[in-house]
């Protein structure tokens, strides 16, 4: 593992397909999706399929359980992080690491830009980076 690893694009990591929900979706419905697919976050899109926000496990903990809110009364827009920081799949792993460290994020949406429009295409998580390091360690062990 060397500096070149960090300058590889995020797309070289083994990424999972993200979970998408539309704005206005009820929070219990979103939680169901997260539970079924074991997703740590969902990407929230507007009616044009543009990225509107991100909702993470942490948001559920802090904004529902921490505030003792009944999830039935809430839609995803009210507890998501709107307009989250995002990267492109072609940006480097170093950028993802930097953003995770600075923003204390565990998930960063990957997007494509079309003029001012932002369309989500994936998510990179701290776990993807961990797995990447683990793969490197496994390779070294085998050698």
């Amino acid at each position, binding site marked *: 593992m060397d500096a070149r690893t960090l300058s590889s694009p995020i797309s070289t990591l083994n990424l999972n397909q993200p979970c998408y929900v539309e704005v206005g979706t009820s929070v219990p419905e979103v939680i169901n999706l997260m539970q079924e697919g074991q997703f740590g976050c969902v990407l929230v899109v507007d009616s044009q399929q543009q990225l509107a926000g991100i909702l993470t496990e942490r948001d559920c903990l802090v904004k529902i359980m921490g505030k003792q809110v009944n999830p039935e009364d809430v839609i995803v827009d009210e507890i998501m992080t709107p307009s989250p920081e995002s990267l492109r799949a072609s940006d480097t792993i170093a*950028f993802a690491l930097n953003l995770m460290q600075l923003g204390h994020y565990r998930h960063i949406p990957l997007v494509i830009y079309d003029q001012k429009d932002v369309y989500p295409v994936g998510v990179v998580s701290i776990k993807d980076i961990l797995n990447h390091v683990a793969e490197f360690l496994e390779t070294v062990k085998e050698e």
Partner: protein
Amino acid sequence: MLYEQIVDEELAIMDEEPDEPSKTLSAHEIQVPLRSLMRLPVTIEMGASIQEAINLMIENRIGAILVVSDGVLKGIFGERDVLLKILNKPVGDVAQIPVEHFMKIDPHTAQVEDSLDTAILHMAKGGFRHIPVVNELNQPVGMVSTRHVVSYIIDHFPQEVLTLPPKPVREAMQAREGA
């Protein structure tokens, strides 16, 4: 002539292949002991409520808490347990239910002298985000999380990571594309 010699030297330098990356992280270097990077554990006694555990996690800005009895580790309770076992489930009043009902019993642990590479492999294989660090009496003395792994890599490659602008410079590129 001196001038030509300097120009030749300059040209020769320009033609050289760029060096191999000077900075590497060998497997050996990931064998740092956990004591050098772990954080202090946040613990809660068995019998405390789920709501108390959640409040402690929020206050301390952490994703998992260690459940102890007389200082001895009994389990771990984290965000994932809240999402998968409590939210949307008819569990009752979380202020009344003891944390041990939903904690993971006898989690995988490490000791202070264990190395980061072993912890990383356990995290990746087991899908854990946290590994409690305990002493020989199974009392928690630390906690290691995926965040420590990221921090360690960044500390090792500060030149590559920390000198980046917070976002890739792309506004200028977009303007060019649009022109």
